């Protein structure tokens, strides 16, 4: 093993994106403290560029084989690159949306971009974690930034409640994560993933290790908002300001799912038969409950919360396969899910009736008559997220189904199919409001940035963009093949 200093110097070139984000966050904090909130626009723009730059840098530095960093605490590999690009792009998109929206509502506080960058840094650590400590550090860094963001409107009761609820419940899950990790450490004597895998391969563990693993899965399920650990999601989604909800709905899901893939297929690959039952159950319950509970929601953000729970169920279906195709299908599903969900939040942000933000399904009434183009974008995105062909969301579901059937989980695919039909029920309710209901009030025009985001997302929901999709698919395969 190299000396610590040498190791640090050797590792840094493989951690450019993280270094960039950390450096920017620190500088922006000082600049913001000195310059005040009038720098909001400047820092936000810069932060968007830094995020895109971090994503680009991750691609530029892509390693051919996994490289251990920081004495084995982290790893630079293709899976990490894939996840980092998804996280960086979706965080950049939601940050741009947020900057635009907060300028309109006069809530320009410079901490917003800084906190987003810090959360993204935490996610980058999560997706490249290679031991239990960096796993925990990554999760906590991301979560702490997220608590503050959830309580962003501190004078607003709902926002404060969202932040507090998120904090308390999340603290419990972090406790479970640590508790579970300590079991794993206790029974294998290792914190590094490869050492845990080696110990399990030699037959270490027994009930203790399963106990630890299940506790860890509970905590990671919480971060992914899988049922039955989803309770926080609707309240936080509803209470937090919409741009921040959009952020929560996109990047952290990728980080949590990729981290889960890393944990399941790395250290615990040897006991796949044990964790598979847990993940299968989480997947089935999340898909069903996310679909059924959403039927009764009238608030758009709560509805989207349940929609994300159901979609995470499909991601979990991919992860439950315990075959190489499983996680790669889950990655593809995530990559196709992100544009739809970001696009839908952009549309929610875009719509104001007489200065008041649109909140409920009924507020969408008559959109097709007043703004046909916007209604068309809504239609494409909703059908895509519902998984109806010919839109991209369907391809995601198809690929996950294929992985599940391949892994002899046909019944899980059938459950997923039924859940998709139930889910179609509430997406159709939105569409019925948009197309069928008569208009009540006039809508104000949307700002350019928001509408461009939504339109780009809608275009991305067409699978005919063969080149993009085909390469994402190959990339997802490549990411999984090279990482485990």
């Amino acid at each position, binding site marked *: 093993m190299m000396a610590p200093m040498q190791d640090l110097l050797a590792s840094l070139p493989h951690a450019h994106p993280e270094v960039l984000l950390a450096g920017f966050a620190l500088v922006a904090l000082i600049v913001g403290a000195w310059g005040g909130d009038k720098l909001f626009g400047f820092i936000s723009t810069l932060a968007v560029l830094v995020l895109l730059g971090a994503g680009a840098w991750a691609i530029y530095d892509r390693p051919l084989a996994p490289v251990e960093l920081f004495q084995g605490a982290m790893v630079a590999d293709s899976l990490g690159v894939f996840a980092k690009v998804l996280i960086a792009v979706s965080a950049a998109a939601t940050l741009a949306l947020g900057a635009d929206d907060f300028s309109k509502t006069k809530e320009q506080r410079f901490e917003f971009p800084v906190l987003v960058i810090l959360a993204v840094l935490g996610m980058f650590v999560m997706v490249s974690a290679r031991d239990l400590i960096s796993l925990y550090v990554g999760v906590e860094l991301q979560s702490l930034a997220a608590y503050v963001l959830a309580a962003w409107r501190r004078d607003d009761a709902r926002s404060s409640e969202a932040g507090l609820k998120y904090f308390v419940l999340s603290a419990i899950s972090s406790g479970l994560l640590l508790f579970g990790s300590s079991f794993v450490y206790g029974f294998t004597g290792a914190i590094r993933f490869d050492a845990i895998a080696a110990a399990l391969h030699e037959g270490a563990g027994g009930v203790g290790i399963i106990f630890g693993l299940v506790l860890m899965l509970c905590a990671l399920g919480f971060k992914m908002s899988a049922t039955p650990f989803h309770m926080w999601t609707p309240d936080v989604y509803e209470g937090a300001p919409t741009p921040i909800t959009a952020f929560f709905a996109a990047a952290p899901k990728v980080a949590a799912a990729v981290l889960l893939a890393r944990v399941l297929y790395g250290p615990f690959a040897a006991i796949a038969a044990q964790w598979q039952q847990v993940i299968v159950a989480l997947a089935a319950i999340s898909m069903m409950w996310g679909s059924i509970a959403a039927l009764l929601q009238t608030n758009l953000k709560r509805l989207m919360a349940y929609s994300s729970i159901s979609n995470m169920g499909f991601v979990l279906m991919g992860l439950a396969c315990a075959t190489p195709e499983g996680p790669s299908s889950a990655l593809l599903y995530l990559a196709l899910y992100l544009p739809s969900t970001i696009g839908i939040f952009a549309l929610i942000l875009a719509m104001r009736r007489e200065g008041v933000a649109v909140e409920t399904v009924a507020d969408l009434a008559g959109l*097709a*008559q007043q703004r*046909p183009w916007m209604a068309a974008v809504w*239609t494409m995105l909703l*059908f895509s997220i519902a998984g*109806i*062909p*010919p839109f991209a969301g*369907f*391809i995601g579901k*198809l*690929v996950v*189904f*294929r992985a599940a*059937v*391949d892994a002899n989980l*046909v019944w899980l*695919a*059938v459950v997923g*199919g*039924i859940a*998709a*039909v139930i889910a*179609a*029920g509430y997406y*159709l309710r939105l*569409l*019925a409001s948009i*197309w*069928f209901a008569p208009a009540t009030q006039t809508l104000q025009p949307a700002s350019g940035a928001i509408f461009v985001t939504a339109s780009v997302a809608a275009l991305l929901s067409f*699978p005919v963009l*063969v080149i993009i*999709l*085909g390469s994402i*698919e190959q990339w997802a395969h490549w990411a999984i093949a090279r990482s485990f």
Partner: protein
Amino acid sequence: MSDLMHLPWLTIVTFLPTAGALLILLARVLARGVEPGYDAAVRVLTLIFTIATFLVSLVAFAAFDSNAPGFQLVENVAWAFGFGYHLGVDSLSMTLILLTTFLTPLCILASWSIQKQVASYMILFLILETLMIGVFCAMDLVLFYLFFEGGLIPMFILIGVWGGQRRVYAAFKFFLYTLLGSILMLVAIVAMINIAHTSSIPDLIAYAQHVGFDPNVQIWLWLAFFASFAVKLPMWPVHTWLPDAHVEAPTAASVVLAAILLKMGGYGFLRFSLPMFPSASHFFTPMVFALSVIAIIWASLVAFRQADMKKLIAYSSVAHMGFVTLGIFSGTLQGIQGGIYQMLSHGIISGALFLCVGVVYDRMHTREIAFYGGLVNRMPVYAAVFMLFTMGNVGLPGTSGFPGEILSLVGAFQVNAWFVVAATTGVIFSAVYALTLYRKVALGNIENPKLGGILDLDGREWVTFVPLIVATLIMGLAPSIVLHFTEGAAQSIATAYAGGVTP
């Protein structure tokens, strides 16, 4: 001719309507808001594009050689995920494509009176046409599903926005019912691809013939496909979405629904169930026969008691589709030919009947049978046209309704005579409800004073009906033209089925 063969005709036929839809969007952007005359321009543009699509489909028809076996005009481009953009037609799909492209311009003509959100309506209709043609062209299982399922989207909006009183309920029921059926098929599709390691339909048919799916697996795959196609066709008892959707849909959407969307179910049976799962099809034949006979008798009786004209025709569709499944699942050449013929004939006749209802609905805004009566006095031409299609619906020899019914029954008779005896009573029942409808609406004296000012067919309606009348009579008087054309496809399906049943 050889140069013509090399153009991607199927892609052109499929996506020409979408090109029209994009042009309308472009015109909207250029026109900057609603200019006067924009709506009229949109109507004309849509009509031009649908007629052009029909002409192109005729060119494709000319390039098609009905004597050659297998799939023709094939286009195959590798796509992502191991699936292919794979198009091709045999004589079965060619006839259904022609039916689609033939009827769509007539539907556009029938939609001339639409005033609300004209551009959206026409765009959706054009997209719907693309998806319908795509279903019949697709030679890749996933591509097929893409088109098959995608058709729900424009139909959902068409019913929901431009429909009648309970349109929202009908739209939801239509969408969710068909989606539930189809999603099981999706799982089966995935399983088939996993077993056979290909998603190409010709390869799968060849696989089924030479290797064959395990008979136990076939049962499940067959049931999953059946779930989807039986809902789509629709078969008793999963037909209940159809009367609602038909009654609430605008006239043109009803026409498309009855004439083309229902045929996708029959097409699916012929393309997938029989050749790919022959032993399961054989196993389930008694069940399908029983359901078909129940549909024929029961739906005819229910149709007789309807007070709404569209609902009556919707139930008669269920009964007619019973003949289709009876013929198809006989697995004999006559039966399959009869099933195909019945689908084509029903496409034209039921489409025409919905247009007939549309004519009086446009004038009086009600579909109540009791409201009308004695129309022959004010609308003699209309009464004559309506008479012809009513007779076609009954299956009078000389109209297109007859050959399909008789061939289906002859085919099924070779398999099980008792079911056919029961089904034949349906022919009588269909005469009962159809003639009763005609008598109540067209004959007698005008009792209702509101009908005093009703006018006969105008020029646009003439143009709409003449092609349908010609098609009905040609198909009735010279069935061999069509039967000869479809024989190749029917023969290969029958052979594949027979080969799988007795290995």
